[in-house]
């Protein structure tokens, strides 16, 4: 299931969002203690929910669903994220999910 994830990986923490170019960079950045506390919700670029597992020394990310059932939720997260990053001059709500994902790549977390 892991190899089917389509990057970037978007991790939302109720208000604070991070976009990771690869699954590996997300696994490297996030910490198991926060995953155990269920602080994050993760999506791949198509809006498929991700399953975050608190493994050590790094967390593990898997696909939780095959069908993108969370694309609208991901759209809302990305619009809020891009607004916070200073993209407010555009009418982001008119963009497609793929366009929003492309724009978010300018603000990835390393």
């Amino acid at each position, binding site marked *: 299931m892991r190899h089917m994830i389509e990057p970037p990986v978007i*991790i939302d*923490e*109720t*208000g*604070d*969002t*991070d976009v990771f170019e690869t699954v590996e960079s997300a696994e*490297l*950045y*996030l*910490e198991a*203690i*926060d995953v155990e506390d269920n*602080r*994050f919700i993760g999506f791949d670029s198509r809006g498929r929910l991700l399953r975050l597992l608190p493994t050590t*020394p*790094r967390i593990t990310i898997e696909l939780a669903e095959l069908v993108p059932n969370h694309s609208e939720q991901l759209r809302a997260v990305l619009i*809020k*994220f891009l607004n*916070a*990053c*200073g993209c407010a001059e555009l009418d982001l709500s008119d963009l497609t999910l793929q366009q929003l994902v492309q724009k978010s790549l*300018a*603000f990835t*977390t*390393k």
Partner: protein
Amino acid sequence: MWECAIGTITLPVRIAIHPVDTVRGIGADLGMRAKTFVDIAADPSGAKEAITDALFVVGPNNSIAIIGDAGGQVIFYKVASFIPTVINGIRYGREFKLGKNCRVAPYGNRAGHPTGRFPHYHRSVPDPKRPGDSLPGQGIKRHRPWDTKPNDKSFWDRFE
């Protein structure tokens, strides 16, 4: 026989120079302490009188010196018991929670992240407009003060 109370600073040196005598001394020291504890437990009021008598016999200066030695031993045990915690913290990059929204990693992490390996802290800054949410870029994920975020407006955003 060597005088070598457990916890004294000179103990490791004495063990190296005279191992047999020192170990024998430790045995005698422990035996004496055990007997004292048993005597105190058996007759507390008698023990109090015995201690008072001993203070008079030993004299005020020596009494203070003995109490000082005992205090030094307590400090030694406290420090010694903390050493394994520090070693494990360094080895595994342990973090310490300070409430729900703050953690400290004094030794950094061992997951391989370029900034996470340095000593850092995590803090989620609450959004006053949305109770329960974090401010954008100010979530618990961030390795402070090393990480930068696209939402940062000043250098001090790293230290929120």
